[in-house]
């Protein structure tokens, strides 16, 4: 019954790990044979892989695990997806209904545990409810602000027989996300845009979720406004576009943060004014009026006061806005003139402090690796995933993302160990594309067991490890704010990653000098199958600019 429903939902691949409480569904999947099942090596890996699949495709990722420890192992993956608004359906086995509450073998109240980190969850008590619940779960996961939905399936319910009535449509009286933005609000937004002399577009993950990148580009090009993106928004607007200021926030560009501090109008689209972006809220964009387009009312006016809230899908909202702008018919020259002085100022900031780093002769700079990687792969339309820490920030700063769904990274939860399994999920979705995990030596060890999964599925994922033998991001904080006491951040043992690769039957390459970087990338990218490229980078390199936590975004520490 579950398998039948999954087929109706168009599920093509499931990531999972088996166990006694879910064996029947695995068995049914095997007998049926339509849906591809990817056996992970850890349930966290399975969940991140489903998440990576969802981010790369925009479809719902599906994960199937057993009760008890199988279920609890998914929690980090679920919370990761929840924070970044990623649609997942996680199916967990559960002890038979008669035993629930009995501390039965491998029983855990996973519905209770995941209540605060799922969009919704269900315990199925009656097989008759199963079709409706499965239908609802997929619907809730993908609509409105997407998110993970968990369904707990007691073993007896999995095995009961009932007539399979899969509903075509559903209507939930208590769940009706607003999609269509209000015309009046759009018109009010235009009135502000019309007057603004120093506008900026602040684009977030919501643009990617709703596929509004084209409309966003039209808006920016029509009114000649600069665009800055959150970490989650990278790819929503071409990073190589002359109007892109790159990422803003804690490790954003000097120019983007200065522009936000001096703008008179923020046009926020699918972004949630996270504290990594605003810094000290009281000092954030003091001169600005704010237009905020978001599908989730709770994102609006949560952290900052908004002048024109627009609740709805950002693609629809931008379409309407672009239409009004066109109808109003202000000539191109007029928009240009209006913002000319603003652009002069922006270009001056760009020139004063561009993103830079010092090249050195004897030691590999991580930024250089990323720049080279970008140059060598930009024509291949790669999907980049990242781990968490400095590696993630260097990727965000020095790789240019021109298309949506090409950067998959854990922003909200910041989950180390996300990148590699996510790359597996993305590669499952796009077997022929180049998928690269940019990793740190710490993070990669958190889900390194998934190398077996990638080998088994013959996935040619490329892993670039920036090895500083440190939990570098934390070390950077210690360097700056804890008198260089490197408590618990120095690894005195790091494995030989090349040997690890070989042990799994994958390829391994290592560069220890700057002049080897290019050739290692060359060999690694051209090698067939799963490949690790390890770069021994400057151990105490920092990520700059940096806005210290709790400081105003103009108080950036520069290189």
């Amino acid at each position, binding site marked *: 019954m579950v398998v039948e429903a999954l087929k109706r939902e168009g599920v093509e691949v499931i990531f999972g790990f088996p166990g006694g409480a879910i064996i029947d569904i695995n068995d049914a999947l095997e007998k049926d044979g339509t849906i591809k099942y990817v056996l992970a090596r850890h349930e966290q890996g399975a969940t991140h892989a489903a998440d990576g699949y969802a981010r790369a495709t925009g479809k719902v990722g599906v994960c199937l695990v057993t009760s008890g420890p199988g279920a609890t192992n998914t929690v980090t993956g679920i919370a990761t997806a929840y924070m970044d608004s990623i649609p997942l359906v996680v199916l967990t086995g559960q002890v038979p209904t008669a035993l629930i509450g009995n501390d039965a073998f491998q029983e855990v109240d996973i519905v209770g545990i995941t209540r605060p980190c799922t969009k919704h969850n269900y315990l199925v008590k009656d097989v008759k409810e199963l079709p409706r619940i499965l239908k609802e779960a997929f619907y809730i996961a993908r609509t409105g602000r997407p998110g993970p939905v968990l369904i707990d399936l007691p073993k007896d319910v999995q095995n009961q027989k009932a007539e399979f009535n899969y509903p075509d449509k559903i209507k939930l009286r208590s769940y009706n996300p607003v999609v269509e933005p209000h015309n009046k609000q759009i018109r009010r937004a235009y009135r502000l845009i019309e007057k603004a002399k120093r506008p900026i577009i602040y684009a977030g993950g919501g643009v990617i979720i709703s596929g509004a990148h084209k409309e966003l580009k039209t808006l920016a090009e029509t009114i000649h406004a600069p665009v800055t993106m959150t970490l989650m928004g990278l790819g929503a607007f071409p990073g190589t576009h002359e109007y892109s200021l790159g990422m803003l926030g804690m490790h954003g560009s000097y120019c983007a943060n200065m522009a936000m501090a001096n703008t008179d109008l923020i046009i926020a689209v699918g972004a949630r004014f996270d504290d990594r972006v605003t810094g000290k809220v009281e000092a954030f964009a003091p001169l600005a009026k704010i237009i905020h387009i978001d599908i*989730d009312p709770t994102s609006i006016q949560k952290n900052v006061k908004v002048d024109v809230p627009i609740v709805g899908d950002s693609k629809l909202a931008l379409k309407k806005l672009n239409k009004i702008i066109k109808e109003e018919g202000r000539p191109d020259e007029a928009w240009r003139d209006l913002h000319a002085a603003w652009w002069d100022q922006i270009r001056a900031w760009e020139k004063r402090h561009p993103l830079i780093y010092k090249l050195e002769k004897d030691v590999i700079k991580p930024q250089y690796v990323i720049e080279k990687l970008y140059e060598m792969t930009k024509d291949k339309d790669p999907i980049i995933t990242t781990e968490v820490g400095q590696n993630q920030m260097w990727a965000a700063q020095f790789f240019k993302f021109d298309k949506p769904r090409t950067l998959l990274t854990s922003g909200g939860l910041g989950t180390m160990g996300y990148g590699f399994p996510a790359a597996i999920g993305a590669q499952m979705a796009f077997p022929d594309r180049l998928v690269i995990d940019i990793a740190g030596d710490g993070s990669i060890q958190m889900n390194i067991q998934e190398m077996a999964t990638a080998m088994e599925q013959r996935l040619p994922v490329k892993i670039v490890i920036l090895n500083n033998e440190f939990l570098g991001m934390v070390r950077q904080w210690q360097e700056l704010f804890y008198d260089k006491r490197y408590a618990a951040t120095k690894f005195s043992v790091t494995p030989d990653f090349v040997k690890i690769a070989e042990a799994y039957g994958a390829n391994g390459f290592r560069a220890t000098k700057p002049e080897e970087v290019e050739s290692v990338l060359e060999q690694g990218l051209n090698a067939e199958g799963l490949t690790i490229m390890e770069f021994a980078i400057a151990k105490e390199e920092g990520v700059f600019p940096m806005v210290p936590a709790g400081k105003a975004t103009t108080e950036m520490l520069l290189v």
Partner: protein
Amino acid sequence: MKHTLSVLVENCPGALSRITGLFSGRGFNIESLSVAPTLDPTLSHLTLVTRGDEFIIEQIIKQLNRLVDVYKVVDVSEGEFVEREMALIKVRAEDETRAEILRMCDIFRCKVVDVSPKTYTIEVTGPESKMKAVTELLKPLGIKEIARTGTIAMSREKKSV
């Protein structure tokens, strides 16, 4: 500022815990809470008293609405409304105080619902202020036990849930 919210939620397992979890997880406070089924057995009516400035209350209402199980939220304290609580108070009633307690009940329109040789059990209904006044006055006489409900509320006129 104190706000009284009226919430209609799907009558299904976990709904209440989603709501209380939302308050504890996001650091909002609940001053009182009462739940009961409505005429439609598939919906429960929840009255919730909370405190916060306008931004917090706006966030609380939006967050409640975001829950898949929540059907409707109204801030009844935005307009004119009536609210009631009920308490059962078991008070020591010796010979010399029995008459006085009855007199007080009369003034506050409370009811004696149980009598024993040494105690009266009094039922009080009213807004929170009345609960306070009655308990303050009864305290010196010796309150042995007290049980209180949360607030229930309803807007006056049209603006019904």
